[in-house]
Protein backbone atom coordinates (compact mmCIF):
# COMPACT_ATOMS: atom_id res chain seq x y z
CA UNK A 1 0.00 0.00 0.00
CA UNK A 2 1.37 3.38 -0.89
CA UNK A 3 0.19 6.72 0.30
CA UNK A 4 1.03 10.03 -1.25
CA UNK A 5 2.80 12.35 1.14
CA UNK A 6 3.56 16.00 0.61
CA UNK A 7 7.15 15.17 -0.27
CA UNK A 8 6.41 12.31 -2.65
CA UNK A 9 6.79 13.14 -6.31
CA UNK A 10 4.57 11.74 -9.05
CA UNK A 11 7.49 9.63 -10.26
CA UNK A 12 7.79 8.05 -6.82
CA UNK A 13 4.02 7.57 -6.54
CA UNK A 14 3.77 5.83 -9.91
CA UNK A 15 6.92 3.74 -9.42
CA UNK A 16 6.20 0.22 -10.71
CA UNK A 17 3.12 1.30 -12.66
CA UNK A 18 3.19 0.79 -16.43
CA UNK A 19 2.84 4.14 -18.20
CA UNK A 20 1.07 4.43 -21.54
CA UNK A 21 1.02 7.18 -24.18
CA UNK A 22 -1.69 9.74 -23.46
CA UNK A 23 -2.60 12.85 -25.50
CA UNK A 24 -4.29 15.21 -23.07
CA UNK A 25 -4.58 18.15 -25.47
CA UNK A 26 -6.05 15.94 -28.20
CA UNK A 27 -8.60 14.59 -25.73
CA UNK A 28 -9.60 18.13 -24.73
CA UNK A 29 -9.86 19.12 -28.39
CA UNK A 30 -12.12 16.18 -29.16
CA UNK A 31 -14.21 16.91 -26.05
CA UNK A 32 -14.65 20.56 -27.06
CA UNK A 33 -15.72 19.56 -30.55
CA UNK A 34 -18.01 16.77 -29.36
CA UNK A 35 -19.77 18.87 -26.75
CA UNK A 36 -20.13 21.74 -29.24
CA UNK A 37 -21.82 19.45 -31.76
CA UNK A 38 -24.11 18.05 -29.07
CA UNK A 39 -25.03 21.50 -27.68
CA UNK A 40 -25.69 22.95 -31.16
CA UNK A 41 -27.81 19.92 -32.05
CA UNK A 42 -29.87 20.21 -28.85
CA UNK A 43 -30.26 23.99 -29.23
CA UNK A 44 -31.27 23.76 -32.88
CA UNK A 45 -33.63 20.83 -32.34
CA UNK A 46 -35.30 21.65 -29.03
CA UNK A 47 -34.76 25.42 -28.68
CA UNK A 48 -35.25 26.71 -25.09
CA UNK A 49 -38.12 27.78 -22.85
CA UNK A 50 -39.19 31.43 -22.97
CA UNK A 51 -42.79 31.78 -21.81
CA UNK A 52 -43.54 35.50 -21.58
CA UNK A 53 -43.56 36.94 -18.06
CA UNK A 54 -46.84 37.90 -16.43
CA UNK A 55 -47.50 41.60 -16.06
CA UNK A 56 -49.70 43.26 -13.48
CA UNK A 57 -51.73 44.52 -16.44
CA UNK A 58 -52.31 40.94 -17.62
CA UNK A 59 -53.32 39.98 -14.08
CA UNK A 60 -55.77 42.90 -13.77
CA UNK A 61 -57.24 42.12 -17.20
CA UNK A 62 -57.30 38.34 -16.78
CA UNK A 63 -58.70 38.13 -13.27
CA UNK A 64 -60.01 41.53 -12.10
CA UNK A 65 -61.72 40.08 -9.03
CA UNK A 66 -58.50 38.46 -7.79
CA UNK A 67 -56.64 41.70 -8.43
CA UNK A 68 -59.16 43.83 -6.50
CA UNK A 69 -59.42 41.25 -3.71
CA UNK A 70 -55.64 41.21 -3.35
CA UNK A 71 -55.43 45.01 -3.32
CA UNK A 72 -58.18 45.15 -0.70
CA UNK A 73 -56.39 42.55 1.39
CA UNK A 74 -53.23 44.68 1.21
CA UNK A 75 -55.18 47.43 2.98
CA UNK A 76 -56.53 45.04 5.61
CA UNK A 77 -53.09 43.56 6.15
CA UNK A 78 -54.05 40.00 5.35
CA UNK A 79 -51.76 39.21 2.41
CA UNK A 80 -48.54 37.21 2.45
CA UNK A 81 -46.34 40.27 2.06
CA UNK A 82 -48.09 42.40 4.70
CA UNK A 83 -47.65 39.66 7.31
CA UNK A 84 -44.27 38.44 6.11
CA UNK A 85 -41.77 39.84 8.58
CA UNK A 86 -38.11 40.37 7.73
CA UNK A 87 -36.53 41.39 5.47
CA UNK A 88 -39.64 43.31 4.28
CA UNK A 89 -41.33 44.39 7.54
CA UNK A 90 -41.69 43.53 11.21
CA UNK A 91 -45.24 42.22 11.08
CA UNK A 92 -44.22 38.62 11.83
CA UNK A 93 -41.34 36.88 13.56
CA UNK A 94 -40.59 34.59 10.59
CA UNK A 95 -39.39 31.02 10.70
CA UNK A 96 -37.26 29.68 13.52
CA UNK A 97 -35.99 26.37 14.85
CA UNK A 98 -35.49 26.61 18.57
CA UNK A 99 -33.15 29.55 19.11
CA UNK A 100 -32.08 29.56 15.44
CA UNK A 101 -33.87 32.37 13.59
CA UNK A 102 -31.59 33.75 10.83
CA UNK A 103 -34.44 35.84 9.44
CA UNK A 104 -34.14 38.07 12.51
CA UNK A 105 -30.37 38.49 12.34
CA UNK A 106 -30.22 41.22 9.71
CA UNK A 107 -33.42 43.14 10.35
CA UNK A 108 -35.66 44.84 7.81
CA UNK A 109 -33.10 45.34 5.05
CA UNK A 110 -35.60 45.54 2.15
CA UNK A 111 -38.48 47.55 3.65
CA UNK A 112 -41.81 47.19 1.86
CA UNK A 113 -45.05 48.73 3.18
CA UNK A 114 -47.46 46.74 1.02
CA UNK A 115 -50.61 48.82 1.59
CA UNK A 116 -48.86 52.10 0.86
CA UNK A 117 -46.58 50.86 -1.94
CA UNK A 118 -49.09 48.71 -3.86
CA UNK A 119 -52.34 50.64 -3.31
CA UNK A 120 -52.28 54.06 -1.66
CA UNK A 121 -49.25 55.58 -3.38
CA UNK A 122 -50.26 54.51 -6.90
CA UNK A 123 -53.76 55.91 -6.24
CA UNK A 124 -52.25 59.22 -5.14
CA UNK A 125 -50.41 59.42 -8.47
CA UNK A 126 -53.64 58.57 -10.29
CA UNK A 127 -55.69 61.14 -8.34
CA UNK A 128 -54.04 64.05 -10.13
CA UNK A 129 -56.91 65.54 -12.16
CA UNK A 130 -59.33 62.90 -10.84
CA UNK A 131 -61.58 64.65 -8.29
CA UNK A 132 -63.63 61.58 -7.41
CA UNK A 133 -60.54 59.58 -6.58
CA UNK A 134 -58.99 62.48 -4.66
CA UNK A 135 -62.14 62.75 -2.54
CA UNK A 136 -62.22 58.98 -1.98
CA UNK A 137 -58.62 58.99 -0.80
CA UNK A 138 -59.29 61.87 1.56
CA UNK A 139 -62.32 60.05 2.96
CA UNK A 140 -60.22 56.92 3.43
CA UNK A 141 -57.32 58.63 5.15
CA UNK A 142 -59.68 60.70 7.30
CA UNK A 143 -61.63 57.70 8.55
CA UNK A 144 -60.92 56.02 11.85
CA UNK A 145 -59.18 52.67 11.92
CA UNK A 146 -62.42 51.01 13.11
CA UNK A 147 -64.36 52.50 10.23
CA UNK A 148 -61.71 51.40 7.72
CA UNK A 149 -61.88 47.88 9.13
CA UNK A 150 -65.70 47.79 8.78
CA UNK A 151 -65.53 48.97 5.16
CA UNK A 152 -62.78 46.47 4.38
CA UNK A 153 -64.68 43.54 5.90
CA UNK A 154 -67.91 44.41 4.14
CA UNK A 155 -66.16 44.95 0.80
CA UNK A 156 -64.07 41.78 1.11
CA UNK A 157 -67.23 39.75 1.84
CA UNK A 158 -68.96 41.33 -1.13
CA UNK A 159 -66.02 40.56 -3.43
CA UNK A 160 -66.74 36.87 -2.85
CA UNK A 161 -69.83 37.31 -5.04
CA UNK A 162 -68.45 40.01 -7.33
CA UNK A 163 -69.18 40.04 -11.03
CA UNK A 164 -67.12 41.41 -13.87
CA UNK A 165 -68.60 43.50 -16.63
CA UNK A 166 -66.49 45.22 -19.28
CA UNK A 167 -63.42 44.56 -17.18
CA UNK A 168 -64.89 46.30 -14.13
CA UNK A 169 -65.67 44.65 -10.82
CA UNK A 170 -69.19 45.05 -9.46
CA UNK A 171 -70.39 44.11 -5.99
CA UNK A 172 -73.80 44.17 -4.36
CA UNK A 173 -74.86 47.46 -2.81
CA UNK A 174 -73.51 48.04 0.68
CA UNK A 175 -71.62 50.37 2.94
CA UNK A 176 -68.07 50.13 1.60
CA UNK A 177 -67.13 53.77 2.02
CA UNK A 178 -64.66 54.96 -0.64
CA UNK A 179 -63.32 51.47 -1.37
CA UNK A 180 -65.22 50.79 -4.65
CA UNK A 181 -64.01 54.09 -6.09
CA UNK A 182 -60.44 53.46 -4.96
CA UNK A 183 -60.33 49.88 -6.18
CA UNK A 184 -61.94 50.50 -9.55
CA UNK A 185 -59.47 53.31 -10.16
CA UNK A 186 -56.57 51.08 -9.13
CA UNK A 187 -57.93 48.37 -11.42
CA UNK A 188 -58.09 50.85 -14.27
CA UNK A 189 -54.52 52.00 -13.69
CA UNK A 190 -53.36 48.38 -13.53
CA UNK A 191 -55.26 47.30 -16.64
CA UNK A 192 -53.67 50.13 -18.62
CA UNK A 193 -50.18 48.98 -17.55
CA UNK A 194 -49.62 51.96 -15.28
CA UNK A 195 -49.13 49.94 -12.13
CA UNK A 196 -46.35 47.87 -13.71
CA UNK A 197 -44.41 51.10 -14.10
CA UNK A 198 -45.42 52.67 -10.80
CA UNK A 199 -44.17 49.71 -8.76
CA UNK A 200 -40.79 50.08 -10.41
CA UNK A 201 -40.42 53.81 -9.97
CA UNK A 202 -38.39 54.82 -6.97
CA UNK A 203 -37.48 58.28 -8.14
CA UNK A 204 -34.89 57.09 -10.62
CA UNK A 205 -35.05 56.58 -14.38
CA UNK A 206 -33.20 53.24 -14.61
CA UNK A 207 -34.74 50.31 -12.73
CA UNK A 208 -33.73 46.69 -12.35
CA UNK A 209 -35.36 45.79 -9.03
CA UNK A 210 -38.71 43.99 -9.34
CA UNK A 211 -39.17 43.29 -5.62
CA UNK A 212 -42.40 45.28 -5.21
CA UNK A 213 -44.13 44.06 -8.37
CA UNK A 214 -43.27 40.42 -7.69
CA UNK A 215 -44.33 40.63 -4.04
CA UNK A 216 -47.67 42.15 -5.10
CA UNK A 217 -48.26 39.49 -7.74
CA UNK A 218 -47.21 36.81 -5.25
CA UNK A 219 -49.97 38.00 -2.92
CA UNK A 220 -52.65 37.18 -5.49
CA UNK A 221 -53.73 33.82 -6.83
CA UNK A 222 -53.36 34.62 -10.54
CA UNK A 223 -49.58 34.07 -10.72
CA UNK A 224 -49.65 30.94 -8.58
CA UNK A 225 -52.58 29.61 -10.62
CA UNK A 226 -50.52 29.89 -13.82
CA UNK A 227 -47.57 28.33 -12.00
CA UNK A 228 -49.78 25.44 -10.93
CA UNK A 229 -50.69 24.82 -14.56
CA UNK A 230 -46.98 24.83 -15.44
CA UNK A 231 -46.07 22.46 -12.57
CA UNK A 232 -43.89 25.09 -10.94
CA UNK A 233 -45.31 25.28 -7.42
CA UNK A 234 -43.46 23.97 -4.39
CA UNK A 235 -45.75 20.97 -3.90
CA UNK A 236 -45.10 20.00 -7.54
CA UNK A 237 -41.28 19.89 -7.14
CA UNK A 238 -41.47 23.30 -8.79
CA UNK A 239 -37.98 24.58 -8.06
CA UNK A 240 -36.43 21.96 -10.34
CA UNK A 241 -39.03 22.28 -13.11
CA UNK A 242 -39.20 24.47 -16.20
CA UNK A 243 -42.11 25.60 -18.29
CA UNK A 244 -43.05 23.25 -21.11
CA UNK A 245 -41.26 19.95 -21.60
CA UNK A 246 -37.79 21.31 -20.87
CA UNK A 247 -35.46 20.11 -18.15
CA UNK A 248 -35.17 22.60 -15.33
CA UNK A 249 -32.74 22.70 -12.45
CA UNK A 250 -32.81 18.93 -12.04
CA UNK A 251 -29.71 19.16 -9.84
CA UNK A 252 -32.00 20.65 -7.17
CA UNK A 253 -33.89 17.37 -6.84
CA UNK A 254 -32.69 16.65 -3.32
CA UNK A 255 -33.50 20.15 -2.07
CA UNK A 256 -36.94 19.99 -3.69
CA UNK A 257 -37.59 16.48 -2.42
CA UNK A 258 -37.50 17.50 1.23
CA UNK A 259 -40.54 19.70 0.68
CA UNK A 260 -42.54 16.62 -0.32
CA UNK A 261 -41.73 14.40 2.67
CA UNK A 262 -42.28 14.17 6.42
CA UNK A 263 -41.55 16.02 8.71
CA UNK A 264 -41.58 19.02 6.38
CA UNK A 265 -45.13 18.29 5.23
CA UNK A 266 -46.51 17.74 8.71
CA UNK A 267 -48.05 20.44 10.94
CA UNK A 268 -46.69 18.73 14.06
CA UNK A 269 -43.40 17.49 12.57
CA UNK A 270 -40.46 16.12 14.50
CA UNK A 271 -38.00 17.77 16.85
CA UNK A 272 -39.51 21.15 16.09
CA UNK A 273 -39.14 20.79 12.32
CA UNK A 274 -42.47 20.95 10.51
CA UNK A 275 -44.34 22.47 7.59
CA UNK A 276 -44.35 25.84 9.35
CA UNK A 277 -40.57 26.17 9.35
CA UNK A 278 -39.85 23.88 6.39
CA UNK A 279 -37.83 26.52 4.50
CA UNK A 280 -35.45 27.04 7.40
CA UNK A 281 -35.26 23.33 8.23
CA UNK A 282 -34.46 22.39 4.64
CA UNK A 283 -31.85 25.15 4.27
CA UNK A 284 -30.12 23.86 7.41
CA UNK A 285 -30.41 20.25 6.27
CA UNK A 286 -29.00 20.98 2.81
CA UNK A 287 -26.15 22.99 4.32
CA UNK A 288 -25.26 20.04 6.54
CA UNK A 289 -25.53 17.56 3.65
CA UNK A 290 -23.38 19.73 1.37
CA UNK A 291 -20.74 20.03 4.08
CA UNK A 292 -20.88 16.26 4.57
CA UNK A 293 -20.36 15.70 0.84
CA UNK A 294 -17.30 17.94 0.94
CA UNK A 295 -15.99 16.15 4.01
CA UNK A 296 -16.58 12.60 2.71
CA UNK A 297 -12.81 11.86 2.75
CA UNK A 298 -12.88 12.38 6.53
CA UNK A 299 -16.12 10.55 7.38
CA UNK A 300 -15.84 6.83 8.18
CA UNK A 301 -18.39 4.60 6.42
CA UNK A 302 -19.06 7.24 3.75
CA UNK A 303 -15.44 7.10 2.67
CA UNK A 304 -15.40 3.29 2.93
CA UNK A 305 -18.45 2.62 0.72
CA UNK A 306 -16.43 2.83 -2.54
CA UNK A 307 -14.19 0.06 -1.23
CA UNK A 308 -17.16 -2.13 -0.30
CA UNK A 309 -19.17 -1.51 -3.48
CA UNK A 310 -17.26 -3.07 -6.38
CA UNK A 311 -18.10 -0.36 -8.92
CA UNK A 312 -14.40 0.52 -8.96
CA UNK A 313 -13.78 -2.96 -10.38
CA UNK A 314 -15.87 -1.98 -13.41
CA UNK A 315 -14.12 1.36 -13.75
CA UNK A 316 -10.63 -0.12 -13.53
CA UNK A 317 -11.61 -3.45 -15.11
CA UNK A 318 -8.30 -3.85 -16.90
CA UNK A 319 -6.33 -3.22 -13.74
CA UNK A 320 -8.01 -6.02 -11.79
CA UNK A 321 -7.36 -8.67 -14.42
CA UNK A 322 -4.32 -10.89 -13.76
CA UNK A 323 -2.63 -9.23 -16.72
CA UNK A 324 -3.28 -5.78 -15.27
CA UNK A 325 -1.92 -6.69 -11.87
CA UNK A 326 1.19 -8.03 -13.48
CA UNK A 327 1.55 -4.86 -15.51
CA UNK A 328 1.38 -2.70 -12.42
CA UNK A 329 4.37 -4.49 -10.97
CA UNK A 330 6.59 -4.23 -14.04
Amino acid sequence: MSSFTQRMTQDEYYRGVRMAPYDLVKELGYALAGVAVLAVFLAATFSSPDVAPVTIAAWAQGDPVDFVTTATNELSGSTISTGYGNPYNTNASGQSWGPIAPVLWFGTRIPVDSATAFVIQPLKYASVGNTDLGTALSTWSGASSDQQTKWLKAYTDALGKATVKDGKVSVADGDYGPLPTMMNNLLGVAQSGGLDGLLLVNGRFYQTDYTQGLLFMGDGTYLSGLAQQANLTGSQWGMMNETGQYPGQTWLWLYTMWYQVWPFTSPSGFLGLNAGNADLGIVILMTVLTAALALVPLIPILRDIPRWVPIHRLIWREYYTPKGKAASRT
Partner: protein
Amino acid sequence: MSEQTLETSNDRSWTFRTRQWVDRVLPMDHLLPHRQPYYVGSWVYVFGVVTIAALVWVVVSGVVLSFMGPQWWHDSSLGHFFNSLHFWSVQLFFLFMVLHLWGQYFMAGWRDGRAATWMIGVVIFAASILTAFTGYLSQQNFASQFIAVNAKDAMNAGGIGAFFNVLNFGQMYGLHIMLLPITVTFLVVVHIVMVRARGVVKPIGPEGGSAS
Protein backbone atom coordinates in the same frame (compact mmCIF):
# COMPACT_ATOMS: atom_id res chain seq x y z
CA MET B 1 28.33 42.76 -11.08
CA SER B 2 29.81 39.36 -11.86
CA GLU B 3 27.69 36.48 -13.12
CA GLN B 4 28.21 34.57 -9.88
CA THR B 5 27.06 37.52 -7.75
CA LEU B 6 23.99 37.92 -9.97
CA GLU B 7 23.14 34.21 -9.56
CA THR B 8 23.44 34.50 -5.76
CA SER B 9 21.17 37.53 -5.61
CA ASN B 10 18.62 35.75 -7.84
CA ASP B 11 18.60 32.80 -5.45
CA ARG B 12 17.12 35.06 -2.79
CA SER B 13 14.61 36.81 -4.99
CA TRP B 14 10.88 36.14 -4.60
CA THR B 15 10.64 35.63 -8.35
CA PHE B 16 13.36 32.97 -8.40
CA ARG B 17 11.88 31.17 -5.40
CA THR B 18 8.37 31.30 -6.84
CA ARG B 19 9.64 29.81 -10.11
CA GLN B 20 11.44 27.09 -8.21
CA TRP B 21 8.26 26.30 -6.26
CA VAL B 22 6.16 26.16 -9.43
CA ASP B 23 8.77 23.96 -11.13
CA ARG B 24 8.73 21.62 -8.16
CA VAL B 25 4.94 21.50 -7.61
CA LEU B 26 3.75 21.57 -11.20
CA PRO B 27 6.44 20.94 -13.81
CA MET B 28 5.26 21.17 -17.40
CA ASP B 29 5.37 17.41 -17.93
CA HIS B 30 2.82 17.07 -15.12
CA LEU B 31 0.64 19.92 -16.37
CA LEU B 32 0.59 18.55 -19.91
CA PRO B 33 1.61 14.91 -19.60
CA HIS B 34 2.04 12.74 -22.67
CA ARG B 35 2.15 9.54 -20.63
CA GLN B 36 -0.24 8.34 -17.95
CA PRO B 37 -0.71 5.12 -15.95
CA TYR B 38 -2.30 2.55 -18.25
CA TYR B 39 -5.52 2.37 -16.18
CA VAL B 40 -6.30 6.00 -17.08
CA GLY B 41 -7.68 4.53 -20.30
CA SER B 42 -10.96 3.83 -18.46
CA TRP B 43 -14.04 5.62 -19.85
CA VAL B 44 -14.78 7.25 -16.50
CA TYR B 45 -11.92 9.73 -16.96
CA VAL B 46 -13.76 11.23 -19.91
CA PHE B 47 -16.40 12.79 -17.61
CA GLY B 48 -13.90 15.27 -16.21
CA VAL B 49 -12.70 16.55 -19.55
CA VAL B 50 -16.20 16.79 -21.08
CA THR B 51 -17.31 18.75 -18.02
CA ILE B 52 -14.54 21.25 -18.76
CA ALA B 53 -15.53 21.31 -22.43
CA ALA B 54 -19.17 22.01 -21.53
CA LEU B 55 -18.06 24.79 -19.17
CA VAL B 56 -16.11 26.37 -22.01
CA TRP B 57 -19.25 26.48 -24.18
CA VAL B 58 -21.34 27.75 -21.26
CA VAL B 59 -18.89 30.63 -20.85
CA VAL B 60 -18.57 31.33 -24.59
CA SER B 61 -22.35 31.40 -25.17
CA GLY B 62 -22.79 33.40 -21.95
CA VAL B 63 -20.26 36.00 -23.04
CA VAL B 64 -22.11 36.46 -26.35
CA LEU B 65 -25.45 36.82 -24.52
CA SER B 66 -24.09 39.30 -21.99
CA PHE B 67 -22.40 41.33 -24.74
CA MET B 68 -25.63 41.66 -26.70
CA GLY B 69 -27.77 42.44 -23.63
CA PRO B 70 -30.84 41.00 -21.93
CA GLN B 71 -33.41 41.89 -24.62
CA TRP B 72 -31.51 40.18 -27.44
CA TRP B 73 -32.40 36.62 -26.53
CA HIS B 74 -36.13 37.48 -26.48
CA ASP B 75 -36.31 39.71 -29.54
CA SER B 76 -34.20 38.00 -32.19
CA SER B 77 -34.03 34.45 -33.47
CA LEU B 78 -30.22 34.50 -33.37
CA GLY B 79 -30.34 35.71 -29.78
CA HIS B 80 -32.80 32.99 -28.87
CA PHE B 81 -30.53 30.41 -30.52
CA PHE B 82 -27.61 31.56 -28.37
CA ASN B 83 -29.90 31.43 -25.36
CA SER B 84 -30.74 27.84 -26.30
CA LEU B 85 -27.05 27.06 -26.76
CA HIS B 86 -26.36 28.46 -23.29
CA PHE B 87 -29.30 26.54 -21.82
CA TRP B 88 -28.26 23.16 -23.25
CA SER B 89 -24.57 23.72 -22.50
CA VAL B 90 -25.55 24.23 -18.88
CA GLN B 91 -27.63 21.05 -18.91
CA LEU B 92 -24.68 19.11 -20.37
CA PHE B 93 -22.26 20.72 -17.91
CA PHE B 94 -24.32 19.52 -14.95
CA LEU B 95 -24.90 16.07 -16.45
CA PHE B 96 -21.18 15.53 -17.00
CA MET B 97 -20.23 17.09 -13.66
CA VAL B 98 -22.59 14.80 -11.74
CA LEU B 99 -21.24 11.76 -13.62
CA HIS B 100 -17.70 12.94 -12.84
CA LEU B 101 -18.62 13.39 -9.17
CA TRP B 102 -20.17 9.92 -8.86
CA GLY B 103 -17.26 8.40 -10.76
CA GLN B 104 -14.77 10.00 -8.41
CA TYR B 105 -16.82 8.91 -5.41
CA PHE B 106 -16.78 5.25 -6.39
CA MET B 107 -13.08 5.52 -7.25
CA ALA B 108 -12.50 7.17 -3.83
CA GLY B 109 -10.60 9.84 -5.71
CA TRP B 110 -9.63 11.61 -2.48
CA ARG B 111 -7.13 8.93 -1.47
CA ASP B 112 -3.40 9.37 -1.13
CA GLY B 113 -3.45 13.06 -0.21
CA ARG B 114 -6.16 14.22 -2.62
CA ALA B 115 -8.86 15.19 -0.07
CA ALA B 116 -8.52 18.91 -0.86
CA THR B 117 -9.04 18.21 -4.56
CA TRP B 118 -12.33 16.43 -3.74
CA MET B 119 -13.42 19.23 -1.41
CA ILE B 120 -12.79 21.92 -3.99
CA GLY B 121 -14.73 19.80 -6.47
CA VAL B 122 -17.74 19.83 -4.14
CA VAL B 123 -17.39 23.59 -3.69
CA ILE B 124 -17.38 23.94 -7.51
CA PHE B 125 -20.57 21.86 -7.64
CA ALA B 126 -22.24 24.11 -5.03
CA ALA B 127 -21.01 27.31 -6.72
CA SER B 128 -22.25 26.02 -10.08
CA ILE B 129 -25.71 25.38 -8.61
CA LEU B 130 -25.78 28.96 -7.32
CA THR B 131 -24.60 30.27 -10.69
CA ALA B 132 -27.26 28.30 -12.56
CA PHE B 133 -29.89 29.43 -10.05
CA THR B 134 -29.10 33.10 -10.72
CA GLY B 135 -29.22 32.24 -14.42
CA TYR B 136 -32.72 30.85 -14.16
CA LEU B 137 -33.68 34.04 -12.27
CA SER B 138 -32.14 36.15 -15.05
CA GLN B 139 -34.04 34.55 -17.93
CA GLN B 140 -36.72 37.30 -17.73
CA ASN B 141 -39.58 34.93 -18.43
CA PHE B 142 -42.45 33.38 -16.51
CA ALA B 143 -40.26 30.67 -14.96
CA SER B 144 -37.91 33.38 -13.62
CA GLN B 145 -40.83 35.20 -12.03
CA PHE B 146 -42.24 32.23 -10.21
CA ILE B 147 -38.88 30.74 -9.25
CA ALA B 148 -38.08 34.12 -7.65
CA VAL B 149 -41.40 34.34 -5.80
CA ASN B 150 -41.06 30.74 -4.66
CA ALA B 151 -37.38 30.82 -3.73
CA LYS B 152 -37.44 34.01 -1.71
CA ASP B 153 -38.97 32.18 1.27
CA ALA B 154 -36.07 29.76 1.65
CA MET B 155 -33.54 32.57 1.15
CA ASN B 156 -35.29 34.78 3.71
CA ALA B 157 -35.74 31.96 6.23
CA GLY B 158 -32.02 31.24 5.98
CA GLY B 159 -31.19 34.93 6.51
CA ILE B 160 -29.51 35.07 3.10
CA GLY B 161 -32.43 36.96 1.57
CA ALA B 162 -31.44 40.12 3.40
CA PHE B 163 -28.41 40.39 1.09
CA PHE B 164 -29.28 38.04 -1.78
CA ASN B 165 -32.62 39.38 -3.06
CA VAL B 166 -33.90 36.94 -5.67
CA LEU B 167 -36.62 39.46 -6.65
CA ASN B 168 -33.95 41.97 -7.71
CA PHE B 169 -33.14 41.19 -11.34
CA GLY B 170 -30.20 43.60 -11.45
CA GLN B 171 -28.47 41.91 -8.53
CA MET B 172 -29.12 38.39 -9.83
CA TYR B 173 -28.00 39.24 -13.37
CA GLY B 174 -24.83 40.93 -12.14
CA LEU B 175 -23.93 37.95 -9.98
CA HIS B 176 -24.74 35.56 -12.81
CA ILE B 177 -22.59 37.13 -15.49
CA MET B 178 -19.69 38.35 -13.36
CA LEU B 179 -18.85 37.22 -9.84
CA LEU B 180 -20.19 33.67 -9.89
CA PRO B 181 -18.75 32.58 -13.27
CA ILE B 182 -15.37 34.01 -12.29
CA THR B 183 -15.57 32.08 -9.02
CA VAL B 184 -16.49 28.81 -10.75
CA THR B 185 -13.83 29.23 -13.43
CA PHE B 186 -11.14 30.09 -10.88
CA LEU B 187 -12.03 27.08 -8.73
CA VAL B 188 -12.04 24.80 -11.79
CA VAL B 189 -8.53 26.00 -12.68
CA VAL B 190 -7.38 25.34 -9.10
CA HIS B 191 -9.05 21.90 -9.22
CA ILE B 192 -7.32 21.01 -12.50
CA VAL B 193 -3.94 22.23 -11.25
CA MET B 194 -4.33 20.08 -8.12
CA VAL B 195 -5.23 17.04 -10.22
CA ARG B 196 -2.27 17.58 -12.52
CA ALA B 197 0.14 18.32 -9.67
CA ARG B 198 -0.63 15.05 -7.87
CA GLY B 199 -1.62 12.92 -10.83
CA VAL B 200 -4.61 10.59 -10.91
CA VAL B 201 -5.13 8.31 -7.94
CA LYS B 202 -4.19 4.64 -8.13
CA PRO B 203 -6.92 1.98 -8.23
CA ILE B 204 -8.29 0.77 -4.89
CA GLY B 205 -6.59 -2.33 -3.58
CA PRO B 206 -3.43 -3.89 -2.24
CA GLU B 207 -1.42 -3.21 -5.38
CA GLY B 208 -2.98 0.21 -5.90
CA GLY B 209 -3.49 3.22 -3.69
CA SER B 210 -4.65 3.14 -0.12
CA ALA B 211 -8.12 1.75 0.52
CA SER B 212 -9.66 4.90 1.96
